[in-house]
């Protein structure tokens, strides 16, 4: 057992209001620079949608992440020794300006400098790259709120899991729903970006697992841009280096939450330490398709287990970090309650950002009827055409998970590599907590029914209360449990990261030389 500590994240999707405060906070701090205009280290997408860059999830196009070969070993899909060499001067899988967007501003000066005329002047959009007027055709959040749904939402790669009828149902006004998916770098345990870099410029910090690109060592190969299946490594066209989310490590080291999390209006974000077994990374990353989520979650260790603590201490993990791991909100969501899942585990990078999947609005069921049914309806059921029945009288009050607005198949394609059971579990727990709270605050549900749903989902009244607290009431210090920085152990302060080739570059991480 090789116990290491990782600062991990949980995003609670039911709470995200899609305000983009996170994106703006990040942009203002880190990427408001020439060459970085198009970089959105934090972005928020509408789902269903094609996201940013367009269709990033489709690895047929971008060749990101790892693929499992016959013998059970895994290879980078589009980078790595042989493939990297073959495409060294031209990489056909790199996203282009069209996949991102041409950054633009407005000719504001025209408002005061336009010659006199009969009409008020206007500030035309101009390209931030060429300075010339442009026709704005794409942006970093172009399909916001289902904008352009015929071109974007309907082409969401995750819809491939659905039948044409199921897809169509998702876009009927009466049952349509969407949710927001905020994304940052996942600071993966098996990062494609690190493994792909021919210069060894990318490394995973020993003390907290933050994945960083050494700007002095980067040689603009851009292999990381292809290899990251989440497209969270961006090439700066001005400096000629690749850049990515650094989890605001200078803030973390000073005890502050990353800017995106600190500013999050919906308070959807949680940050805390997870302990994991580095010996099992390779096995987890190369687990067979159906088992990858389980294997990933199995890597995460119980911070209260004596053996885990001893092994962590042997590895030089400071006690203060262990303490943070024991108080970690992410440990609660991911392991203790089993309510958070990684995004696209099938990319096999073992992301350390987990999502509580969206339960979405409580909902009545909508069914197509023969019109005649209207007569037989419960008086509180409403109809708006003769063929569609809007039934608010479901026995369960909130319907069932299977009736949810988003087909389970769709959510499974996002959060569990297609495993519907795995994604239904957290949703059932969310529902159980709602039922429990309804019983407690409104009291129109039978106590026996509450105990039954809690038992079904493996929650107790106490844990339901704790889930409710962390979801709805938690304060800063509950949501962000930041371990004190131990800069004395930091690799890059002591030596040049490019020299420690063994710990990055092609292949798996090697054990760094630190601790006892």
């Amino acid at each position, binding site marked *: 057992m090789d116990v290491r500590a990782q600062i991990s994240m949980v995003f609670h999707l039911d709470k995200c209001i*899609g*305000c*983009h405060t996170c*994106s*703006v906070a990040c*942009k*203002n701090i880190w990427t408001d620079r020439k060459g970085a205009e198009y970089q959105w280290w934090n972005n928020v997408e509408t789902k269903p949608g094609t996201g940013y860059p367009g269709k990033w999830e489709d690895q047929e196009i971008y060749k990101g992440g790892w693929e499992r070969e016959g013998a059970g070993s895994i290879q980078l899909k589009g980078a790595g020794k042989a493939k990297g060499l073959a495409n060294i001067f031209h990489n056909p899988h790199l996203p282009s300006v069209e996949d991102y967007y041409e*950054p*633009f*501003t*407005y000719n504001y000066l025209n*408002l005061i400098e336009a010659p006199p005329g*009969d*009409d*008020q*002047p*206007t*500030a*035309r*959009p101009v390209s931030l790259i060429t300075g010339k*007027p442009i026709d*704005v*055709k794409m*942006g*970093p*959040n*172009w399909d*916001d*709120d*289902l*904008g*352009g*749904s*015929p*071109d974007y*939402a*309907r082409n969401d790669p995750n819809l491939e899991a659905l039948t044409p009828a199921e897809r169509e149902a998702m*876009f009927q*006004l009466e049952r*349509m729903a*969407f949710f927001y998916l905020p994304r940052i770098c996942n600071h993966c345990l098996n990062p494609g970006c690190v493994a792909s870099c021919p210069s060894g410029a990318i490394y995973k910090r020993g003390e907290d697992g933050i994945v960083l690109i050494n700007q002095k060592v980067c040689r603009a190969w851009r292999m990381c841009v292809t290899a990251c299946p989440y497209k969270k490594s961006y090439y700066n066209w001005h400096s000629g280096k690749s850049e990515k989310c650094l989890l605001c490590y200078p803030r973390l080291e000073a005890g502050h939450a990353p800017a995106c999390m600190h500013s999050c209006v919906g308070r959807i974000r949680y940050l805390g330490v997870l302990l994991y077994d580095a010996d099992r990374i390779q096995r987890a990353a190369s687990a067979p398709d159906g088992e990858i989520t389980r294997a990933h979650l199995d890597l995460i260790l119980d911070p209260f287990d004596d053996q885990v603590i001893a092994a962590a201490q042997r590895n030089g993990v400071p006690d203060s970090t262990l303490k943070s791991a024991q108080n970690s909100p992410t440990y609660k969501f991911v392991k203790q309650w089993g309510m958070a899942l990684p995004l696209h585990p099938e990319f096999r990078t073992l992301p350390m950002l987990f999502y509580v999947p969206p339960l979405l609005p409580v909902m009545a069921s909508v069914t197509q009827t023969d019109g005649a049914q209207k007569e037989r309806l419960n008086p509180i059921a409403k109809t708006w055409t003769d063929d569609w029945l809007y039934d608010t009288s479901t026995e369960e009050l909130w319907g069932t998970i299977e009736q949810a607005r988003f087909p389970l198949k769709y959510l499974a394609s996002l959060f569990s590599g297609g495993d519907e059971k795995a994604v239904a579990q957290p949703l059932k727990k969310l529902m159980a907590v709602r039922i429990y709270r309804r019983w407690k605050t409104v009291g129109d549900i039978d106590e026996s029914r509450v105990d039954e749903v809690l038992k079904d989902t493996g929650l107790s009244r106490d844990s339901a209360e704790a889930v409710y607290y962390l979801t709805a009431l938690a304060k800063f210090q509950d949501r962000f449990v930041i371990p004190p920085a131990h800069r004395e152990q930091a690799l890059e302060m002591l030596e040049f990261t490019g020299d420690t080739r063994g710990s990055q570059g092609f292949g798996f991480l090697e054990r760094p030389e630190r601790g006892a």
Partner: protein
Amino acid sequence: MTDGRAYAAYTYNVERLVPWRTLTGRQHFYLDHELYLAYGEYLPTYKPSPRPEAYGDLRETLKSGEAMALNCLTPHGKWHIHSTYMENHRMLTLSRGCEPCWLSEADAAKLGIQDNDWVEVYNDHGVYCARAAVSSRIPRGVCIVYHVPERTVGIPKSQVRGNRRAGGHNSFTRIHLKPNYLCGGYGQFSYHFNYWGPIAPQRDTHVIVKKMTKVIF
């Protein structure tokens, strides 16, 4: 901001026990004014939107070519407070570079409008030129322009109105008075700017939507 906390509505009333500025000093849910009783609006009440003819926003406007009359709603924008921050570069980048006119998939198809095409939205009162955002979340027969776009940011000249610079969404909306707006002098039913006065029904109007023939800035 006071003590690191942002101002929120009613903080004074709750924390300093300042009575609400109403007849009773409490919050009112039920309005016992004669006119409200007469119109059946003493409690929050659903009333169907009047028909376009009753509003009379399209009496003079000619419909020509591929154009369609739609019910236009102008709800609060997602990221600007009315027109304040509307021209914010960050947020324009994070949306569509403008405040578009949202159309349903079905209506857009009928009008030959594709997502991001330029459209004109006009009626007897005025015209707004914008890009189309075609979306499955918009019901047929309805279009939405979030309020308030500024014509100072990338708005081309209107082709249906003689190649002149069009206005924002306020150019095609107007205030519709309801009789109960006219009551007053009774407790909180007294005119005070932004507190008691004609309200949101100007956000429900009728317009013609048409693809723009030429884009001239």
